[in-house]
């Protein structure tokens, strides 16, 4: 019952946010999966606008539709109904090849499991989106090195993924995500496989990208403290947005890092989550 009233307030807020400057504009997005005879309504009419330079954390229990939402926002999937404008373009019915081009140009992905191509150097991993954009080899190497410098890995260009720590691998993934200068960076539980300190270090990278480069970031997480590094939190439940609020008392990763003890053992790391 509470959910319904929350949804009503969320829906009533929507139109005011659908500004022309929105990088992402979702209008009544539905996504229904058919598993045999059973219909699964993953998204039941989601409307949302995200402006340029926003840093949004999407939260919600598993099965709430946040992953489906990310797939649609990331142009990996079509909505069943509704329209989706990405950077001013209606992409809801784009073909597979067009979606690939849109992902290449507009979306940078960061995954929980890093998803780097194995036995391929950090530099080459970062070059990958540019390979599909048709950038010349020399230019690719230059820009990839630049992106790796931004995430603080300029000394690891030639390292293979298995020669890098989890945090470093995720930084490579972030460099790969931002190398084509996308409209949005989509991070799906980016800290899920990392310890506290590394997670905060990663949050520092995201905050810097957001603040210094005005990069629009959408981050899915189930950790409340990670969501507190964002500027805005959107809460999903049962395929709907139930809450959408600005973060008050936002965390500053650089400051948190300064306060964290330099060396922690495993128990402390687990404690540090709170």
């Amino acid at each position, binding site marked *: 019952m509470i959910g319904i009233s929350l949804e009503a307030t969320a829906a009533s807020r929507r139109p005011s946010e659908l500004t022309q400057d929105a990088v992402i504009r979702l209008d009544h997005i539905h996504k229904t999966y058919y598993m045999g005879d059973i219909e699964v309504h993953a998204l039941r009419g989601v409307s949302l606008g995200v402006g340029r330079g926003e840093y949004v954390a999407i939260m919600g229990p598993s099965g709430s539709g946040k992953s489906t939402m990310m797939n649609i926002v990331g142009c990996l999937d079509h909505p069943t109904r509704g329209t989706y404008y990405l950077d001013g373009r209606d992409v809801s019915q784009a073909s597979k090849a067009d979606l690939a081009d849109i992902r290449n140009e507009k979306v940078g992905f960061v995954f929980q499991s890093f998803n780097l*191509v194995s036995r391929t150097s950090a530099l080459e991993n970062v070059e990958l989106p540019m390979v*599909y954009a048709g950038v010349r080899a020399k230019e690719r190497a230059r820009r990839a090195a630049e992106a790796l410098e931004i995430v603080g890995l300029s000394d690891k260009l030639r390292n293979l993924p298995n020669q890098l720590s989890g945090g470093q691998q995720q930084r490579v993934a972030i460099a790969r995500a931002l190398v084509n200068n996308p409209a949005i960076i989509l991070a799906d539980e980016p800290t899920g496989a990392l310890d506290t300190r590394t997670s905060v270090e990663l949050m520092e990278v995201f905050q810097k990208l957001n603040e210094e480069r005005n990069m629009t970031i959408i981050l899915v997480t189930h950790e409340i403290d990670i969501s507190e590094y964002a500027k805005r939190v959107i809460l999903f439940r049962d395929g709907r947005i139930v809450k959408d609020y600005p973060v008050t008392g936002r965390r500053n990763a650089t400051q948190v890092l300064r306060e964290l003890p330099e060396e922690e053992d495993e128990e402390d790391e687990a404690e540090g989550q709170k």
Partner: protein
Amino acid sequence: MRFAAILKIAFWALGRNKMRSALTMLGIIIGVGAVIALVSIGQGAQALIREQMAAMGTNVMYVWPQDVRGTGGARGASNEQGTLSDADVFAIRNEVPVIAAATPIVTSNGQLVFKNNNMRANIQGVGEEFPIVRDWNLMAGTFFTAADVESRARVLVVGPAIVAELFEGVDPIGQAVRLRNQPFEIIGVLESKGQTGVGQDQDEAVLAPYTTVQRKLLGQVLPRVNQAMLKTVDQEGAFILAERMIDVLLRERHGIPPEAEQPDFSLGNLTEIANAAEQQTVVMTLMLGSIAAIALIVGGIGIMNIMLVSVTERTREIGIRMAVGSRPGYIRLQFLAESIMMSLTGGAVGVIFGGLCSLLIGQFLQWNTWVSAMSVMISFGFAAAVGVFFGFYPAHKAAKLDPIDALRYE
């Protein structure tokens, strides 16, 4: 996406699993190698026949007494009492206008002795027009004349192999040798012509006036010839015209009515014989090639198998590539590039391998082998086609993957 980038990724992907790529390519290597090697045997035989035909001279026709063609050519008739005489040959030479030159051929053999050396020789008794008929020139000395034939002179013209073996560096012209215990004189040396198809070395030829062979070596009372070798004028339809006129002429001379089906002679020309033989080798080449092509197809199935495994193994990588913006078409191209790269590399190595095999077959089995540019191109092209054909399904399967499922694949 750039072509160079596709090649680079394909190269990287194959290099990641070197052993597997090498074994997969081995299938194509063996396939292409087998095609090249086996076809080279067939084409070697073809080339030999063509070479032999050229060596036998152009516009050459034969007349055999009775029908001895099927039983090993002219040599089978040496013990039989044939019905072809020198007079028949002269009649053909003089009365058939399209015949430019003619020679009777009488065969014998014997031990050729020079000082302490001796060797077995096949002796051909021929007429003075033999060099014209066979387009065969002398390297040294002179050929025997009509007068030598008339007088049954004991003179010999020999091939270069005889000179090398028997005379060991001594100038053979004017040297006395013994043949069947009769004194002969070497008056000329023939140019080198090489091997014939039936393993007879033309360079080992020993030629004597046919009259000498008939009377002095074979001791024939009623001289007969084993065959007549004729050369027609260089003119369209000369063979057909010559065959008709010779048929009429010999029937008349031998008293065979024109309506009788089987005369006591047979006619043939070299082109006809060579074509028939070449037809056989073409069939043989095709058969060998098709058998080898089966190996190539099996190699292609090997590529398909490995590519399917590779697509499954690399599902996650495919998902990553799609997420960062690879169109399905690029994924298809990339996997196709891998299978084509394997088949082309395998094809290239196979060509070398097949070439070496054909060389070894030529060396150790003493077979004539010949690797033609055509067989290289066809087998290489076939290998490429195999790569495309068997690579397409796995590549298509990879391109059809859903990026979300592929990223989640464990």
